[in-house]
């Protein structure tokens, strides 16, 4: 029993439903291996710090997973490798998955708030 953070970046020039399709695929695979999806975070369309496969932006998704065996991770990564929509993915083994929104989402909320407050100030 181990916890993983599985982040994927999906190319920006696909219909937005692709994000859900990929998430669905991951969910199916996790289910097959009797794992659990503890949380899912959509970071939305972000600008990449550098171009990946000539893309400057990408849809980020973070999955907090609880899996029983490493073979599930292998299978997930293999599927992501074959997928044309996923331009980058990363699995990180973590001690626990916090229920709170991650730093990225907090930063996003902060930026949105600043935008709202902007005209007033």
């Amino acid at each position: 029993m181990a916890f993983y953070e599985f982040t994927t970046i999906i190319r920006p020039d696909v219909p937005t439903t692709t994000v859900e399709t990929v998430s669905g695929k991951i969910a199916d695979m996790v289910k097959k291996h009797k794992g659990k999806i503890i949380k899912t975070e959509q970071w939305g369309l972000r600008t990449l710090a550098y171009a990946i496969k000539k893309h400057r932006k990408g849809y980020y998704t973070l999955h907090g997973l609880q899996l029983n065996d490493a073979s599930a991770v292998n299978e997930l990564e293999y599927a992501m490798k074959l997928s044309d929509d996923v331009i980058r993915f990363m699995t990180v083994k973590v001690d626990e998955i916090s229920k709170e929104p991650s730093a990225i989402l907090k930063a996003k909320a902060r930026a949105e708030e600043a935008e709202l407050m902007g005209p007033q100030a």
Partner: protein
Amino acid sequence: MAMEPLPARRPNDKSKGKGKGKGKFSKGPRKEGTDGGFKKDAKYSPRLLGKAYFQRRRGCPFSGPKATKIDYKDVRMLSKYLSDLGKILPRHLSGVCAAKQGELATAIARARMLALLPFVLKADPAAEREQRNERIAARVARFAERDAQRARATESAE
């Protein structure tokens, strides 16, 4: 009490302290005259060197009770430990302890993998453009000079 000369006071000699300071670095009552003559070969404890000695010492931001967590997703925190070119700052500048510097490096590596942080940042593009323009101008001037020289050479040959 005999009036024999006082033994040299070592900084760790707590038995002779006034019992006011709790730790090694606590501010004890300063002895008069200790700041005055700075002797080269004498042993000076941090306490004798005064406040300036401590002002530069900041603890590791990732250790201790109020430590920030090192997280590869926290771009804002990680970018504090990058140089202008996107390199990881050395420990002697950031004050991070050795163990945490390792963790920090791993976190930055992960953030770079996810394109949250860059591997390299270009130095100021405007300045770079200016430099390039200067280089080009210099080259053009060199070429012009060379052409002029050649022209002169052919002229003298004729």
